[in-house]
């Protein structure tokens, strides 16, 4: 079975640092470069911006994302797609959040554009739990008929780590 195109959310790049040791995670990031250069791993620019704000000093994911930003964000979604996503799942956005732009609606828009183009796509996120009125990215993706998985699942199917 051919592997899908992965659209990464910030949460899955952030959580890697707590799931693995620094050396392990650096090695994982290096191996993620393969699907990225093959065009099967993408993320919008807003993910890089969130990483810049939240990744902290020990930041293999940010270093990797910055290095490959040009390739990974080449298919940056249009504002029209973001609007179309929000027309269906407005609750995925927290309109009161200040500061760096929240990536969720851009991740969904990117995935939706790829899906419409006939590409087999998965959103990679850790956001599945409902805590406040904001809809988790994983749930919003589900409503939009976009499958979503966690980082650990993605790494397993890419043969990078075992589950």
């Amino acid at each position, binding site marked *: 079975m051919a592997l899908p195109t992965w659209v990464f959310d910030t*949460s899955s790049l952030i959580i890697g640092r707590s799931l693995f040791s620094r050396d392990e995670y650096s090695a994982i990031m290096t191996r993620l470069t393969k699907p990225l250069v093959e065009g099967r791993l993408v993320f919008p620019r807003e993910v890089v911006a969130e990483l810049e*704000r939240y990744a*902290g000093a020990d930041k293999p994911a940010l270093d990797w994302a910055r290095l490959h930003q040009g390739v990974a964000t080449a298919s940056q979604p249009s504002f029209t797609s973001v609007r179309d996503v929000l027309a269906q799942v*407005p609750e995925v956005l927290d*309109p009161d*959040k*200040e500061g760096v732009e929240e990536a969720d*609606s851009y991740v969904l828009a990117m995935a939706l554009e790829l899906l419409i183009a006939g590409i087999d796509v998965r959103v990679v996120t850790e*956001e599945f739990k409902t*805590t406040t009125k904001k809809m988790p990215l994983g749930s919003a993706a589900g409503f939009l008929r976009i499958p979503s998985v966690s980082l650990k699942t993605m790494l397993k199917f890419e043969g990078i780590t075992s589950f």
Partner: protein
Amino acid sequence: MPKIAVPITPAVLDWAISDSGFSVEQIAEEAGVQLADLNDWLGAKSQPGVTEVRALAHALRRPVAALLLPKPPDSHSPTVGFRHTPGVAGRSLSPKERRYLRKAARLQAMLAAIGTEMGEARPRLPRLDTSGDAGAAAAQVRQALAVPNGAHPQWVSASAAFDAWRESVESLGVAVFLFQLGPESCRGFSLWNDTVPVIAVNTAWNDEARTFTLLHELGHLVARTDSACAAGEPAELSGAWDPVERWCEVFAAALLIPEEALRVAIADRLGPGVRRVVDVAQVRRLATRFRSSLRATTIRLIELGLASWELYRQLPAATDAKSAGGGGKGRDRQEVQEDSLGARTADLFRRAVEADVVTRSEALTYLDVPDSALDLFGARPA
């Protein structure tokens, strides 16, 4: 290259401007866009470009994506009463006050959701009526705070006193935020919630004034009268008091300065024969004992019949101003945020992440700290 038109929703832009407290003209100036263009976008006659929509979102303190929503969100900024001492002109909340209220309410909603899911104890705050005796209410709350009415702690500094009071108030289940609202804004505000009530204190004034604001807002929580509160210069005191505001001033002063301890301090510091306090120098000596503001100390003296309102009017202008100089200690973002959001918030988020109630990235966006700081957040001794 042709301009990319961003398909914003005019009704959402209109809502965001209205909710910000700015006028259309002010937003145009703040965002650096032409007023005529902004009116065209509001009237759906044209659409802004990417640079313009980013500038608008920044001025409105909203995500760009918010302007792409199909309609204005159902939730609105919290509603609180603007209350003030006599001599302060009544006004509506300023854009900055609205912004920080929204920020506090957003944090409060998340803290309440976390608290509920984690089975946190409800806040131990009695509900008291402002028609009752404020001094008795203060004595009741002192008991809840486990601060004895007789013995009164001796703090090494006003800053240490504020930290101790903040910790005590947080121990009741209240989240206490410190916000840089600036001297033109309210002293503080309060937002009741059955799980996590919130007090925000403006950092524009000295520690003594902050302590008084903290306890004044605690009064509003006890009375369940959500408010944003401003205080004028003592010399401007004239006209009628808002009864709720007056009750909270007396409540805060009584909480901060118990009668028994005050009478002991008068004897110790002003002399055993002193029956009335008549000048500001005497007030200052008493205020130092309690690490309280001159305003709080004088109000307490007046309530106990130990001074007159004339003494209050003699208090120097800018009595609550911070001392000049000093400057920052070069704190990192974790330290700044920890100080701003307080121990209760830090502790709740840290435990919520450990218990998998919220994800790390969710916690990071609320706390606005880098990932490397999250495990330390709230774990360091004060």
